[in-house]
């Protein structure tokens, strides 16, 4: 056991820090074009798709290097890359399961964000029970005709392409009848409607497909292999972003420390109140443990150990932590914690949602983490069955299948 950074990682961090010190935009990026331009700059500097193989335009970097970049970006609050889903898991899905034609056609434009991608998985009646999805794709030989509705699609309004899970065979057990197809979002049969969340903004959309057309050449893997493909690519991203995520929590915590020194109650700063101190200590201990755990995951990734079902522990851990964190922070801040528009400098924090906001935004957003990408309950099922080896529950759909 040795947690010191290797000399080459220290050198890489220093070079990365210098680059971001020089190149990070000083103004907020407002338009999509501005964000695309920043993304392009990052891409040209080699900071996008770092884990992708060189032959597909990546850097074949180590997980440690990727983690360092994400950490340094968090340190200076650099605007994020766009096309996160495309780079994080759709591109890798194409690399692993795609045809040569698909790789040539799509990969480079994912990296450069010339084409923005979204994920078309969840449906109104297929959330945790994703395999129960109903969107149909009828096989017409050289193409499919797609009908159905998707929900919780991020980047929907700006997406050019989507990775779609759809039913191509309704006569076989539900997990076997699902296929994975790339869908052009820019066609009359696809309608995107923004979905307003409890935060007041719309990071997600509903997507309606009415006789939309998907090409045969855009089928990933074989017909009926979609569920299997989706399983291999869930949780691709967990690990590489872990250090950066903790750094964002820590920079928000610094704002909380400032707040407790400036806000006063009973004639003295909050930080002098024993009850407040106890809560601060509790959050920070919890936050540091997230950091140690991130280093542990990273060191395993660096050695080439696939996290497998263990990534469910990571996801469960940090999303549940986020809820505890912002609940305690809002208890400490009192009415100041309710603000949606900042009144003091310490009200503005990195909310972990990719959008700037206040403590209230972060608090509201923290309710999403334990639902998206497999709810906490689903993660606990995975941990119970695949890590602890507990028996599977007897489920009505399994009995029928």
């Amino acid at each position, binding site marked *: 056991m040795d947690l010191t950074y290797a000399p080459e990682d220290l050198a890489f961090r220093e070079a990365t820090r210098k680059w971001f010190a020089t190149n990070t935009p000083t103004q907020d990026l407002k338009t999509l074009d501005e964000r695309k331009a920043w993304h392009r700059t990052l891409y040209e500097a080699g900071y996008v798709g770092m884990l992708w193989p060189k032959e597909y335009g990546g850097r074949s970097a180590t997980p440690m290097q990727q983690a360092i970049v994400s950490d340094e970006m968090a340190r200076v609050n650099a605007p994020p890359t766009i096309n996160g889903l495309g780079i994080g898991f759709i591109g890798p899905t194409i690399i692993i399961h795609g045809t040569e034609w698909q790789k040539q056609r799509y990969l480079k434009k994912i990296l450069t964000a010339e084409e923005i991608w979204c994920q078309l998985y969840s449906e109104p009646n297929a959330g945790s029970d994703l395999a129960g999805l109903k969107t149909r794709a009828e096989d017409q030989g050289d193409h499919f005709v797609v009908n159905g509705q998707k929900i919780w699609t991020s980047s929907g309004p700006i997406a050019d392409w989507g990775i779609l899970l759809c039913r191509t065979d309704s006569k076989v057990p539900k997990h076997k009848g699902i296929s994975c197809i790339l869908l052009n979002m820019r066609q009359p049969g696809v309608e995107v409607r923004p979905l307003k969340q409890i935060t007041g903004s719309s990071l997600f959309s509903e997507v309606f497909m009415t006789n939309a057309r998907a090409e045969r050449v855009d089928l990933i893997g074989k017909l009926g292999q979609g569920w299997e493909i989706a399983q291999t690519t869930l949780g691709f991203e967990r690990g590489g972003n872990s250090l950066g995520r903790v750094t964002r929590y820590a920079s928000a915590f610094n704002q909380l420390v400032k707040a407790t020194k400036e806000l006063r109650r009973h004639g003295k700063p909050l930080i002098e109140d024993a009850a407040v101190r106890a809560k601060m200590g509790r959050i920070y201990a919890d936050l540091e*443990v997230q950091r140690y755990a991130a280093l542990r995951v990273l060191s*395993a990734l660096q050695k080439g150990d696939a996290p497998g079902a263990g990534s469910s522990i990571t996801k469960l851990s940090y999303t549940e932590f986020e809820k505890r964190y912002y609940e305690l922070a809002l208890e400490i801040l009192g009415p100041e914690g309710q603000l949606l528009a900042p009144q003091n400098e310490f009200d503005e924090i990195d909310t972990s949602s990719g959008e700037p906001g206040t403590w209230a935004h972060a608090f509201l957003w923290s309710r999403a983490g334990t639902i998206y990408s497999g709810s906490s309950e689903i993660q606990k099922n995975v*941990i119970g069955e695949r890590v602890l080896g507990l*028996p599977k529950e007897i489920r009505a759909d399994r009995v029928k299948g």
Partner: protein
Amino acid sequence: MDFAFSSDQQLLKNSARAFLDEHCKPATVRSLWDDPRGESEGLWKEMAQLGWLGLSLPEVHGGSGLGMVETAILMEELGRAAYPGPYLPTILAATGIGEAGTDAQKRRWLPAIATGDARATIAFLDADFDWSPGAVRTRAERTPQGWALTGDKRYVPWAHVANVLLIPAVAPEGLTVFLVEPSARGLGLSPVAGMDLATRWVHVRLDQVPVASDTVLGTVGAGAALLGGLLRRGAVGAAAEMLGAARRCLDMSVAYAKVREQFGQPIGSFQAIRHKCAEMLLEVENSHSATYYAAWALDAAAEDQELAASVAKAYVGDAARKVCGESIQVHGGIGFTWEYDLHLYFKRAKALEPMYGDGDYHRELIVRTIAGS
């Protein structure tokens, strides 16, 4: 960067597990509950032969010169076995003697500790139960022969079997640590029993206890740093021991949930039980990260070593209590019986929670570090 154990560390862990499974079974622990000493001389001597007692001592004094990570590995296994005996206080005291002792003090105590001929302990707490080295109330007054110590030390682990006690006391120059033998005149020992019958504490009363000048450990007046460092090591050692107890409870719960049937199915197939087990695993894994990060930070003298020790003790104390408690819930009625072994580990974790600084104490230290006041 490598968070995993080295092959030597893994070997130490495996051999400790194998040894304790064989020589420190639950029946062994139970057999010592009514023993006045509460520990086994035979077990202690075997631990010495395995090199455990000298693990972290310098090689010139019969030790192996290993670090806190290795100590934590052993402590975790000892916690897993609910081992009864003065291992942690002895090695903490030995570390203090090794760090601050004179050559004569080291020669006197360290080889004897490494061979299992001597046991030692540290009296961190005074009567007002404040873990801060600055809160020591026991007084040290100069006498023509050396010093006289007067005060009340509380909950001193295993003092009734110790051959030497590290007694912090306030001298006119400041906090000073003394090496005191239990036969000293004016020193009274009163054992107290807690709910973990395999952990022993002793109240130590000092009434004008005369000690010679050469019993001062380190520099007169400079004891706070020494004591603070030992408290941090104790906190990480206790975190490792609680982690071991928690992992034992988790393992027993998972094994039980696979075979215990109700409503015609193994209870582990019910989400109510499976989710509990998953939450317990999460707490155990986070506790592992916290404990070994802190152990490494102490070995590496990392910038955040003090913070990491406090984080580990505060976090693992809460986590182990939760995990061990939930293990009783997973087991149901049988987990509440005296015959079933779960309570050995449940009580061990609980017994360590208030020691070496409780969660509130360490969280306050954390806030002082991050808020700067």
